[in-house]
């Protein structure tokens, strides 16, 4: 079990605190540690094309299975599913394979969602009142 703190980000007008976690992602010969936003509202795990590029995945991600992903605007964008290996320091110390959908977006993010990430763990609890979240393996 690990307890993490929310992260406060710069914002022009309000305090923004979000549940970020540092995840090490492996793809072929590349290994990067990336700050990912835990997203209990995401059906799947999403990685945008800029982060994919940092793992040396360019337009070749289109070899993955094509699906549609819709955000709050309801517009379905093409996304391509690729398997990655992930580790999380002091929590997931052996590599686990998860499927992430690669998406082109104006904003760049990694969203570990319900299918792929949440189901790796027994429990993920958010305690917003004390700006903590807990992940139980």
């Amino acid at each position, binding site marked *: 079990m690990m307890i993490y*703190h*929310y*992260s*406060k*980000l*710069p*914002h*022009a007008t*309000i*305090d*923004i*605190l*979000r549940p*970020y976690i*540092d995840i090490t992602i492996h793809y072929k010969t*590349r*290994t*990067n*540690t*990336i*700050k990912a*936003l835990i*997203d209990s*509202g*995401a059906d799947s795990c*999403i990685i945008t094309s*800029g*982060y994919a*590029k*940092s793992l040396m995945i360019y337009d070749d991600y289109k070899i993955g299975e094509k699906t549609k992903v819709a*955000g*709050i605007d309801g517009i379905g964008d093409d996304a391509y599913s690729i398997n990655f290996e992930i580790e999380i320091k002091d929590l997931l110390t052996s590599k686990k394979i998860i499927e992430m959908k690669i998406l082109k977006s104006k*904003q*760049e*993010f990694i*969203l570990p969602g319900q299918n792929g990430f949440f189901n790796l763990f027994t429990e993920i609890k958010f305690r917003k009142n*004390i*700006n*903590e979240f807990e992940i139980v393996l």
Partner: protein
Amino acid sequence: MQKNEKNKYIDLSEILKDYSEKWVVLTYDNKKVLKSSKNVEDLKDYYDKGILFFVPNQNFSFCP
């Protein structure tokens, strides 16, 4: 009132305030920006030295 010692967070607001919509590589302790750029590939020599992060736009909230 008793102070809630657990009410903590990682404060990135100061160190990232000048990097809106830029890519950064942070030190593993989240205390310093090692390198930044508009283009993620400019940071490739730093990927293995810290945590890669795209700093979101500071003028709007995020509802993915």
